[in-house]
């Protein structure tokens, strides 16, 4: 019955040997079960050893010690092959799989950022320029209109305004896809700008920005990841935290870059909320963690309900540019 429920016995009653072999292979056992079995095995070995040594008469103590050692060795060598080796292989496989997932994640984020960058550039270069051209033409028309043609003038002025607005919106949208300031000026200026933007849109929140030890540029994926985490954290604070004060700190502590975002808000209510996504960066806490781990870094969230939340991201930057 139990065998059947485990899938080891087929419906017709015959044993499913391949499944049985799989289940018996220690490499698939839980480590705790494996440890228990191994301990039991050692106990049996010790018991047999004691039994043999106790019930035999040896010519000299040296021979007794040799027999003692031999019995232990006979018992322990299969244990090495049966227990330790499969376990080691499994650990190695797990580590390799983890590395692969990390690598794939990294590739995924890179591709996404690349797409955003391309899209932003296209918006700037293509649509932005067309709007500028339109503006030039509208201005020219405005210059050629006589003062007496007041209705036409009004219309053209309105047209000029809407063209200006379109240009502004395009630039803003492109910037939200991928802030060009990050490539041009680096992390500090970008974070400063972003903090300023958030404060501008949410005057009820005060945000301090502080930085120390950051003297060089970092690889592009490190920079964009730090920016995205900051963006997402501030977004969360504005959306959910109900905070009045927050701070963003960027510190280089060799060999890691550390971003800390703190707020004095409500804290995170429960673990379920980790999945909430930010429409801009598409991240959420879970996503932030994945992005940081993809770069081999650590991500921590500490929250005290009703008091504060701290988000910390640490990325190793051996490849600093």
């Amino acid at each position: 019955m139990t065998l059947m429920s485990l899938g080891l016995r087929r419906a017709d009653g015959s044993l499913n040997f391949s499944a049985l072999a799989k289940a018996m292979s220690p490499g698939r056992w839980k480590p705790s079960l494996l440890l228990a079995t191994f301990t039991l095995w050692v106990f049996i070995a010790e018991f047999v050893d004691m039994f043999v040594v106790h019930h035999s008469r040896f010519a000299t103590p040296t021979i007794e010690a040799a027999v003692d050692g031999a019995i232990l060795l006979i018992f322990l060598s299969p244990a090495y092959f049966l227990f330790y080796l499969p376990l080691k292989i499994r650990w190695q496989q797990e580590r390799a799989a983890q590395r692969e997932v990390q690598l794939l994640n990294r590739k995924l984020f890179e591709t996404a950022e690349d797409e955003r960058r391309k899209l932003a550039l296209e918006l700037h270069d293509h649509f932005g320029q067309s709007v500028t051209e339109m503006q030039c033409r509208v201005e020219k028309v405005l210059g050629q209109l006589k003062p007496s043609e007041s209705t036409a003038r009004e219309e053209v002025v309105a047209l000029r305004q809407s063209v200006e607005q379109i240009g502004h919106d395009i630039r803003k949208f492109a910037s939200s896809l991928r802030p060009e300031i990050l490539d041009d000026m680096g992390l500090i200026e970008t974070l400063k700008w972003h903090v300023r933007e958030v404060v501008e849109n949410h005057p009820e929140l005060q945000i301090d920005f502080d930085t120390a030890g950051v003297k060089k540029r970092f690889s592009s994926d490190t920079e964009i990841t730090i920016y995205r985490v900051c963006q997402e954290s501030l977004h969360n604070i504005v959306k959910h935290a109900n905070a009045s004060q927050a701070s963003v700190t960027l510190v280089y502590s060799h060999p890691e870059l550390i971003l800390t975002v703190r707020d004095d808000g409500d804290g995170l209510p429960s673990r379920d909320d980790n999945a909430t996504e930010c429409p801009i960066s598409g991240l959420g806490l879970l996503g932030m963690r994945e992005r940081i781990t993809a770069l081999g870094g650590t991500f921590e969230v500490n929250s005290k309900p009703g008091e504060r939340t701290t988000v910390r991201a640490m990325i190793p930057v051996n490849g600093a540019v």
Partner: protein
Amino acid sequence: MVDRCLDIFIIDDHPVIKEGVPSFLGDCRDMRVIGSASEVHQALKKLRYLSPDVIVLDVSMPDMSGLDAIALFKQELPDAKVLMFSMHEKEAYVHRALRAGALGYVVKGSPISELVEAIRAVHSGEYYLSPCMRKEVYQTYLRDRQEEPAETGGYDLLTEREQQVFRLLVAGSTTQQISKSLNLSPKTAEKYRTSIGKKLGTRNLVEMVKYAMQLGIIDTETWGQS
């Protein structure tokens, strides 16, 4: 008799600007565009034979950043005034441009008449800033002036090695443990500790920890884990 014509050189990689602006400026009698280029190096070559009064320069260029190019143009033509004409509406760009020697900053997308105004202002040696940027620039100015000297200033003086030692110290390691994990002699580790204290102005470990917490290097919740 009007003054001598104001000579302008435009550097922008977008044909719309390179062609549109001259056609617009054509309406102004006292200005003329004497040349244009779509790359910084191309511009430098052309400028050997020309001496414009005002150089209108874009920030995003295919071969190098316009911000970095300002110094090159100032070197080539010390008398020419540089006016940035850029789509970036961020204070950091204005700051970098003005520091590098540009006199004006006009945002693309503002009325073209603004560009004319800016060219005139810059030519007479005045600073010019697009009205849409003024608020941000003034606000930054005000904030930076009112900020007290940053307490974190000392941290910038630390070398990478000292940063490492500092991080281990505040995470609770003893000098001996540090010397072991970083492969230093205990004496060297002790030296680092003293020099860190001097640079940060901290008298003891407790002050160092406080300093580190302020910077977010350690967090009380995850004490010693990092």
